[in-house]
C-alpha cells in the first residue's frame, strides 16, 4: 500500500479523490471551462498514477510537485494556483 508522508510526519494513505478535487478547484479558480477542467484533472491524475506506479512511500510535496508538473502541460494558470495554494477547500 502506498504511504504518503505528511509535513507533520504523519503517514496517511493515498486519496485519489482529494487530489482530483484539489486540481479541479485550481482549475475553477483559474476560471477554466468545465469540460477542459475535467480533462485537466484526468490528465494530471493519470500522470501522477504513472509516476506512483513504482513508489512505496512519497511525501505530500512529491504529490504536489508531480501534479503541478502535469498540470503545467495542459493548464499552466491552474498549475500556478495549485502549486501555491495552502488549502483549496
Amino acid at each position: 500500500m502506498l504511504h504518503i508522508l505528511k509535513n507533520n510526519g504523519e503517514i496517511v494513505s493515498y486519496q485519489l479523490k482529494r487530489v482530483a478535487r484539489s486540481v479541479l478547484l485550481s482549475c475553477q479558480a483559474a476560471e477554466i471551462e468545465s469540460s477542459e477542467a475535467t480533462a485537466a484533472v484526468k490528465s494530471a491524475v493519470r500522470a501522477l498514477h504513472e509516476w506512483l506506479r513504482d513508489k512505496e512511500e512519497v511525501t505530500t510535496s512529491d504529490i504536489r510537485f508531480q501534479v503541478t508538473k502535469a498540470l503545467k502541460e495542459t493548464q499552466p494558470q491552474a498549475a500556478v494556483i495549485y502549486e501555491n495554494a495552502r488549502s483549496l477547500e
Partner: protein
Amino acid sequence: MRKKHKKPKVFDFDLLIIGSGPGGGVAAHLAANANKKVGLIEQGDPGGANAFYGTIPTRALLDAANQLWQLKTIGKYGIRSSTQSYNFRAVQLWKQKAMYATGVLEESDVFSHDKITLIKGRAHFVSPWTISVGMKRYSAKKIIIASGSVPVIPAIPGLNEAGFLTVKEASNLEKPPRSIFIIGGGKIAYEYSQIFSAFDSRVHIAEPSGSLIHHADEEVNDGAVWALEGKGIRVHLETQIMSVAMHGGRKIISLVKNDRMHRIVVEQILIAGEEHPALDMGLENCGISYGPKGIRVNGFLQTNKKHIYAIGSVIGKHSEPHAASAEARLAIHNIYAKKPIKYPFDVSPTIYYGTPEIAVVGKNEQTLRQISKKYQVGIAPIELIGSARTNDYSGGFVKLLTSKEGVIEGAAIISSHASENISELSLSVNSKIQAKALTAIPHPYSSESSAIQIAAAQITSAD
C-alpha cells in the same frame, strides 16, 4: 512552498549511498575502511547495472567475438584451422565465469564488510537527511548519490508493440539473432554490433546525427564506421526511424535516409543511443538542484546541499565506470579530509571496446574552435608502427591536439589497445604536459604507444 526540514540530532548512518555500481560500490568500501557506518541502497542487483551488463560482461562477449574474428583470418599467419564454429551457450558461460570472478554473482560477498549495510529497494528522499526505502526510513550525516543512468527509449510509433532489447537483455541472449537493428550510435552500438556480427548476425545501426561516435572528431567517427563496415555491419548515419511494425514474427523498420524511405526486416531491435541520469528519487524533497542532464555539482562533487554529493553518470558529464570510481575516491576524500580536491572532469577518457578500440580524452577540435582557442594537430597512423607489420592491423591512428604552446589539450586513439595507451594522454591533459615531453620519453619500439611519440614529434617539429 517547500517545507523547512529539521536536521536530525541522531543519524542511522555516517554515510548513505544510493547505488552500488562502480561509483557507489567503491565509495562504500572506502568509507567502511575508514571506519564509517555505511548504508548502501541498491534497487537492483548489488554491484549495479555495470556489473551485470556493463563493462565486464560486455568485454567478455567482445573478447569471445574477437577470438572468432581472429580464427576467421588466422590463415594469414600460416596457421590452419578447420573449425570456425561456436556454441553460444558456452560463450554465455564464459561471460558468467568472468562475472563470477568479480564477485558480483555472490550477493553475500560483494559488500560483506561489517561496516556496510546493504539496503535493498528503491531510494526516495523524504528530507535532506532521510531516505525512504520500502517504507523504512534511514538518515545519514552525509549522502552520496550514485544512481547511474537509464536508457532512453525513443518515441517511435510501433516500437513498444514490436518489442525491443536494451543492453540488459542483449547481453543475456541465449542465442544470437539472425538479424538485429541497433537504434542509436555510441558505445553500446559500437560494441554490441561487433559481438553480434562475429556470431553471424546481420547487423544494422541507425543514428540520426552524422556521428556514430559522439563528441569526437571526424577522423574518429570515420575510423569507427570504417572498422564496423569492414565486418559487414551496415551503418546508417543521418537516418531517422519513422516507425516499426510486426509481420510474421519479424520486425519491419521504416526509415528515412538521404530523403529516401527504406524498409529493413530484422529479428531483433536493440536500443542503444542516449541514456538519461536516474533522477527520480524525490530530489525535490531535499532541494537538490538538477536539470535534464543530471544533478548539478561543483568541482568538489558537492551538490547545492553541502552534505550531499553526487558521482557517476547521474551528474551527466560522462558514463564511464572508471570515472565513477575515480569520482567515488575523490568524493570520500572531500567528505572526510580537511582539504577538498577538485575533480578534473576533462581528463576522464571515454573508451569504446572492440576491434579496434577507440579512446578519447580531453577536448576535441570542435570544442577548441567553440572556445576560439588556437591549436595544433599531430596525427600518427598506426601503419607506421612495427606492430602493424607483425599483427597485420594498420587501420588506426593516434591524434593529439595541443595549444599553440604545445600543451596537450585532447587526444584520440583508434588501435587494438587504445584503452591501454590513453592513460598517458589523460595524465598529459591533467598535468598540462607539453608535446615535447612526450617526444623525449622513449616509447617501446613497435608498440602502439610509440605512435603517441610520433604524433607528439609532429607537433614539436612544427614549432
